[in-house]
């Protein structure tokens, strides 16, 4: 999994690509931890380059979301496709989080 992060207006756009599995998923939470340490707590995760996610990915996401909220921020998503969208839907994550169709819509908030 590759993580590319852009900061603007005290908000982070985190673009994830590749595979978020039990081996790679902790890197997302570590990235959010370091954003919180730097004082950025509003995070948009762009999932459009992500081709695979497992329960380990959901674990990393929920854990990060709890920490971001506790720090006064939020975690939202955009660009979900294929099996990533399917896994978000069946796990109830689609209704638990703010999910935008595209990066532009998420950034316009």
């Amino acid at each position: 999994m590759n993580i590319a992060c852009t900061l603007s207006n005290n908000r982070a756009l985190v673009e994830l690509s590749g595979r978020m599995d039990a081996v790679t998923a902790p890197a997302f939470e570590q990235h959010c931890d370091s954003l919180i340490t730097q004082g950025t707590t509003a995070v948009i995760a762009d999932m459009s380059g992500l081709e695979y996610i497992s329960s380990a990915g959901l674990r990393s996401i929920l854990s990060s979301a709890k920490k971001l909220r506790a720090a006064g921020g939020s975690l939202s998503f955009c660009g979900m496709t294929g099996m990533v969208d399917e896994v978000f839907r069946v796990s109830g994550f689609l209704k638990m989080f703010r999910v935008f169709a595209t990066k532009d819509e998420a950034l316009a908030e």
Partner: protein
Amino acid sequence: MTLRIPATLDSLAGAQAFLRERSTALGVPELLLGRLELVLEELVVNIGSYAYPDDEGDMEVGCEVLREAPGAPAMLCIILRDWGVPFDPLGKETPDLDADIESRPVGGLGIYLIRELTDRCEYQRNGDANEFRAYLRMEDTQ
């Protein structure tokens, strides 16, 4: 044709590659490959934790295409076997899907995802082995 691996995360990438290659050779549509790899990953993690709570142990991975009756839809069956203590993954509780971010517990979704993303799952204890089978309809495009 099966692959025998230690039930550890170190084996995951190799086992997923084996499964992808094998199922592509069997004509499995691309769309199902992600679900198939998820079944494998969640079981590797669970077998490693619950069937082999103390030591590392092996598991075997295989898949085949079968029809339950003439004219019935072709099903892809993934078969996972281990020789640990009896462990029925299907005995796990369903998570609370309506909880909000703050109250929802982290984790516990692996087996639930398998059940939701496959058409049917079966577990049986066969001698000294746990056998888990998950079935996916080949032409499923939902």
